[in-house]
């Protein structure tokens, strides 16, 4: 049979494809619907948080930070409750990471505050002596991309039925409505920050990347 396959490239290729596709079909497909159900209480991200999530991805925070608490006492002591599948129901993409050069951030919103993040992103060693994390000063200069964040929320609502605008869920509405809600949300964060640059930009109606990122980090609970 193998000699025959080696002389018939078409059937050889079909054979190889069937053999390599087998595992994916068996391991991925059966649980696909099950694993995607949200845990009660899990809500989709607000537009500001999504904008922050996009900053998190843009600067590859996930290269050094995981978002997955494994079910060991040493991890739950350090980071809080271990992760449940349904908590990730609105994470597109998932951001579990594969390396902890820095600590896990799955529940960082429970134990860090806006001002801590501000100091930390400006000068990590000021709050964590010995830290090898770089400063991210450019996040205080770059403006967050609200339109793309809204586009993402609108897309997941339309295409994947993510429950925005439903009872007890975040409101999305039109872009103008979303923008207004977002400014109110951002105002609370800016009020807790020290940076004059960020405050003045906010008065002009601009939201810096750092504000969105902090909103996202605070939402991780």
């Amino acid at each position, binding site marked *: 049979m193998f000699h025959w396959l080696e002389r018939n490239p078409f059937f050889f290729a079909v054979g190889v494809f069937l053999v390599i596709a087998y595992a994916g079909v068996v391991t991925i497909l059966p649980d696909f619907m099950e694993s995607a159900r949200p845990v009660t209480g899990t809500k989709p991200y607000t537009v500001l948080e999504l904008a922050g999530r996009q900053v998190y991805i*843009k600067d590859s*925070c996930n290269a050094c930070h995981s978002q997955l608490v494994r079910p060991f006492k040493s991890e739950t002591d350090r980071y809080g409750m271990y992760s449940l599948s349904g908590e990730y129901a609105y994470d597109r993409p998932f951001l579990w990471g594969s390396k902890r050069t820095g600590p896990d951030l799955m529940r960082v919103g429970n134990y860090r505050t806006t001002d801590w993040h501000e100091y930390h992103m400006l000068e990590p060693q000021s709050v964590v002596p010995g830290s090898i994390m770089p400063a991210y000063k450019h996040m205080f200069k770059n403006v967050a991309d609200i339109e793309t964040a809204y586009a993402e929320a609108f897309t997941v609502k339309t295409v994947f039925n993510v429950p925005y605008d439903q009872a007890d869920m975040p409101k999305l509405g039109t872009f103008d409505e979303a923008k207004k809600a977002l400014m109110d949300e951002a105002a609370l964060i800016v009020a807790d920050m020290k940076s004059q640059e960020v405050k003045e930009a906010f008065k002009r109606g601009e939201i810096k990347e750092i504000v969105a990122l902090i909103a996202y980090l605070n939402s991780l609970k």
Partner: protein
Amino acid sequence: MQARDALNYDYSVAKCFTYATILFGIIGMVIGVVIAYQMAFPELNYLADEYGTFSRLRPLHTSGVIFGFLLSGIFATWYYVGQRVLKVSMAESPFLMIVGRLHFWIYMLTILSAVVALFLGIGTSKEYAELEWPLDIAVVVLWVLWGISIFGLIGIRREKTLYISMWYYIATFLGVAMLYLFNNMEVPTYFVAGMGKWYHSVSMYAGTNDAMVQWWYGHNAVAFIFTVPIIAMIYYFLPKESGQPVFSYKLSLLSFWGLMFVYLWAGGHHLLYSTVPDWVQTMGSIFSVILILPSWGSAINMLLTMKGQWGQLKENPLVKFMVFASTFYMLSTLEGPIQAIKSVNALAHFTDWIPGHVHDGTLGWVGFMTMAALFHMAPRMYKRELYSKKLMESQFWIQTTGIVMYFSSMWIAGITQGMMWRATDQFGNLAYSFIDTVTVLIPYYALRATGGLLYLIGFFMFTYNMYKTMTASKAIESEPQNASPMAA
């Protein structure tokens, strides 16, 4: 013999991809060394403003070496080996020549745009699949062109039976095509919402599902880029360079079909103790252990090919590179399954032991084999002898030292870190704060970076040797049959 003389193989595309291999090898490895030193000396993060932080550069390093250096290496060897094992010249088909050239230029454009995009932070965050949808489409186009090249050449072949290397090239083509397509399923947001950045997209899968698809891809990208085409290379170049027949046809059959079936199950070992279903995790563990069989099957087949000919290791540095590559392959395919066992993974996951494992495979197995292949091809493509054997010998030892420094420091760092994360004091409280587990690693990070630097220096020696071979070495009259001619 007559048929061989009559054929004039066309190496123009193979040469283009050889240059690309060297270019992207330098870019990818330089970035790798920079980010390795950044971990020991964080001030190095500020060399290029926001474009020079570790986090921005890390995807550039991984994509640069995987899709820049290695993929061009794979294509270079394909455009060389394919013609020879099928006994047909590309020049016989003007169509295939056009496809080959187009393949090269679209590839270059895609990779260069990818470099720019990743510098700007445009990406999806999925490891080794960071590119956004417009670049994904470009990747699909260049992959289809490669497929046309493979099956087109097969269509006009003289040698009817496909040699072992051909099996592996075909598997590379099919495997990566399947994995890449499914993992990069995404919805461009601009076309749904009519606002925001046109190139932004959102993944088709959410949370745990996304993780499963990603690591089914991520692990098997390793399989079908770091392993399968490298085996294609060694099955051609080692017997050719040493003049020894492949030890066992049956062993190569078992290894090939075994590898194809088993590898794809193992992705689950990246998700142990995560929220994916427990049975998937256990399957991932078990199949990872079984994976030793086909992996060692290929490696042992190659080592036994050298049976009774070990003297060649002393005389021919190319054979040495390839035998060491095979040995490193055995090492990393033993280490991988060990890390995939749940209790070991509980300790090793998220630590530096993982990048350590990746690098003994990539630097030792993938890097050595790719460079040996290009060294073997050079005298045949440029009709000149290799420039310097002595340089090659020093390169070998410098790089081997670098690899050993790299993986031993990362093993120690990883296990230290894993143990410290879980250590408790006499009252059962965590003994260390997180930062304690970082600062303790800095000496190992420095050692690792220096290991990487040695490897990079070796790569520059390789580049210089290749450059001199192409331009200044002694011309040879007839094509060498086996051992590549080289000046002392």
